């Protein structure tokens, strides 16, 4: 609805154009085939560490009941999304603003729900969940100068998305997005975004959470409240070191709080075009498994403190601490870096880092040749020459090699840094000839 037409505002005035948009749609997704049928599997039995045995032994063909229980009652998923937005033009179209708010709900989401193995099956496809996705996207473009031989445009975009599993029937959590083999697996769990990490942390104060108990039966929350330590404070055992938690908890998720970009372009004399793009992502977290592995091998700079004395909470992993060994100085040695200080130990949460970044994504300069010699020499209308540089600068607090280096590529399990390569900085020279 172009409401400025109704208001009959001046097309060249302050509010030069305005539009209101609204949309609603529903889509469905069908389940995978053959879910109602039981099946026998021939896959190898793995022991979790590499060794495996084939169900076929000594040429006797082997079959066994597959882990997926037949599901005769599956409905398709439904996704309903509503979108509201407005596009405004201001100051004779020198500025335009677009704002969109969307809210989508997927119901009857089909998950391979984990079943208790004591039923004889490991999973069953079920319409078990509801996921909501809502967010806002804002884009603003300025055109401060628009003259015949010089124009300049600046654009900004901001997007924020909130995702939550609002309902999950039949299981506490569902593995989602493929397993990485590190135990640091993304899950769908009620009350958290899809793809949240369900992993082991060091023992901390978790007031209000049940099952915060050490292997010898000590109630951690009781000690924490007696010591008046804040939530999240690190528990220090009597030997002066933290203790690994024996229970998995939601430790974070890779999704950013917001993303955005800023772009600008200049056109000079109709032939030169200069542009730049800055990408911003804030609030995302990343598991720096690479650092944890280098700790184990003693090759990271952090391990240069080997043999030196540190106190947890003060000058090493600074933060609040409590427990029988709190504020005791200890010697940080190979045993630490190959134990709890290593990502091989199975405790992944301590290696989560803030992976927010601001990157100078691209700067490019282009020139269009339209002179007569282009037509006579090349037989073409014009030729564009463009020099661009990509991924030129990165500003981030992340200590790993690149906050965008991802182990799993486009898989739903994101935010894992495990000896991946960073995005490359590149310079590209392009010639394009237009007839």
């Amino acid at each position, binding site marked *: 609805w172009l409401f400025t037409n109704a208001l009959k505002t001046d097309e060249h005035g302050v509010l030069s154009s305005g539009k209101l948009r609204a949309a609603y749609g529903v889509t469905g997704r069908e389940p995978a085939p053959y879910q109602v049928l039981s099946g026998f599997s021939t896959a190898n039995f793995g022991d979790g560490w590499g060794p495996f045995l084939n169900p076929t032994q000594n040429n*006797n*063909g082997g*079959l*066994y009941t597959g882990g997926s229980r037949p599901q005769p009652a599956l409905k398709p998923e439904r996704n309903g999304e509503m979108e509201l937005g407005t596009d405004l033009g201001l100051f004779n179209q020198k500025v335009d603003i677009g704002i969109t708010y969307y809210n989508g709900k997927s119901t009857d989401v089909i998950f391979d729900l984990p079943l208790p193995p*004591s039923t004889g099956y490991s999973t069953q496809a079920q319409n078990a969940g509801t996921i909501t996705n809502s967010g806002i996207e804002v884009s603003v473009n300025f055109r401060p100068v628009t003259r015949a031989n010089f124009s300049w445009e600046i654009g900004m975009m901001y997007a924020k998305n909130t995702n939550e599993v609002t309902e999950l029937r039949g299981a506490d959590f569902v593995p989602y997005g493929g397993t990485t083999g590190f135990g640091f697996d993304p899950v769908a769990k009620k009350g958290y975004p899809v793809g949240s990490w369900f992993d082991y942390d060091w023992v901390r104060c978790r007031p209000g959470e049940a099952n915060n108990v050490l292997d010898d039966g000590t109630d951690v929350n009781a000690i924490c409240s007696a010591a008046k330590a804040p939530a999240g404070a690190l528990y220090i055992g009597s030997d002066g070191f933290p203790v690994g938690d024996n229970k998995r908890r939601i430790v974070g998720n890779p999704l950013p709080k917001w993303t955005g970009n800023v772009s600008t372009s200049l056109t000079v004399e109709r032939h030169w075009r200069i542009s730049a793009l800055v990408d911003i992502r804030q609030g995302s977290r990343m598991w720096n498994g690479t650092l944890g592995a280098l700790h184990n091998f003693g090759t990271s700079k952090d391990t240069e403190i080997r043999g030196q004395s540190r106190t947890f909470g003060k000058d090493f992993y600074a933060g609040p601490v409590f427990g029988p060994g709190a504020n005791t100085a200890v010697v940080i040695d190979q045993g630490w870096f190959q134990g709890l200080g290593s990502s091989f130990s199975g405790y992944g949460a301590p290696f989560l880092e803030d992976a927010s970044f601001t990157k100078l994504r691209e700067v490019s300069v282009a020139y269009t040749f339209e002179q007569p010699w282009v037509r006579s020499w090349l037989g073409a209308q014009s030729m564009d020459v463009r020099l661009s540089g990509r991924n030129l600068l990165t500003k981030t607090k992340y200590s790993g090699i690149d906050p965008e280096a991802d182990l799993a590529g486009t898989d739903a399990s994101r935010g894992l840094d495990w000896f991946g390569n960073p995005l490359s900085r590149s310079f590209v020279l392009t010639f394009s000839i237009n007839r």
Partner: protein
Amino acid sequence: MRTLRKVALCITLPLGLGACKDFLTGPKLDNNPNQSSQATAGQLLSSVTANANILLNGPGTRLTAMWVQQMAGTDRQYQTFGLYQGLTESNYDVPWGSVYTGGGLVDVRNIESLVAGDRTYLGIAKVWEAIFVGNAADMWGDVPYKDVISGASVPTLDHQADVYAALQTKLSDAISDLGAGSGTGPGLVDLIYSGDRAKWIAAAHTLKAHLYLHTAKANAAAYASALTEAQQGITNASGNFLAWASAKAGEENLWNQFFRERDSYMRGGKFFVDLLKARNDPRLSQYFGLNGAGGYGGAAPGEGLDGAVHSWLSAARGDASFRQPFLTSDDNNLIIAEAQFRAGNTSAALATMNGVRSAYGMAAKTGLTGAALLTAILEEKYVANFQNVEAYNDYRRTCYPNITPASQTFGGNVPPRFYYASIELTANPNIPDIGSQPRRNAVDSPALTTAADGTACKGQK
């Protein structure tokens, strides 16, 4: 034109509707071309045999071997496990899954229903059931049994003692099924005994002896039952229950595979290697290979790998085709010896023990009584049950060997049980979470204050 269209419609519409019916039903939709929907008992038995191998000789047994210090973890996670750290509920997912899901109890029950008329086959399947669930009760204590598989969507826990009692009945049924002598059985598909009824009956008796023995800490009367069963059990090495193994990929011995995959992670345990050296036991070279310095040595818990000192398994023991023993005549006969001792029959116990020793060329011991004799018998068992979960069961029952716990993580205990697996906890609200699980299993309570040798027990609190 209109008539043509009408005629075309009249012809195609009913054809189309008829074709629709086939489109929505029929064999193409009812059969998954990627997966078989039927299996024979033999196919299931082959899977069960392989899967049981993972349960009995896989990650769970690697842990218990470290806990009783027959083996040691020397790198990465295994080094930490040896110090009782990093033992999270996910560690027990593979063993738990092996017990119940594909290749485990669900398929043992499938075999039992497929072979209902063949008493030999049925008896063998029942023994497998007791092997799986018996191991589960040993490791986890209270486990789901009565309402599993059959359809309860969230099975409840049954008391450990009740599970053992149910398994004793199951094994007695198996023995009478096998004793009936009818039915052809699995024949050569059975890779353990090739369908030999007598050997399966003996194995079932030894298994019954084990399960009685496991309850004896809290109930001393069980020793007499264990004795009766063991005397009908595997008394000769030709009846040993060995896991299948061959050099073929997918059939290789699991310790061999583990060494190939993760060669720095484990070595022999210092306590055990030193014990074998002190005994001058020929099994030192049968079990272990030479270290870098040309001798034998083991690693202490938490010790990093030192190739000059630490031994891996011997060439024979570590070979891909080494068939890992699960139930042996040595173990069975030492059960007899111990039960005779417990009944007060000292001379018979001594003679039985010496019989086992002599098979390895070890001189007979004389003049032993009381705690010294018990310790000697348990020491023989500890040596015989190398890489076998039974060594861990014996440790919990008797505090032999009286090892110093590798760390204080479990409050001064050698880890007394497996935590319930995370894959069960996530989907079954009837399973208590870590903070509410018992510290020790019911039959393993109370913690022993005095070890078998009469000294204070160091690893049970």
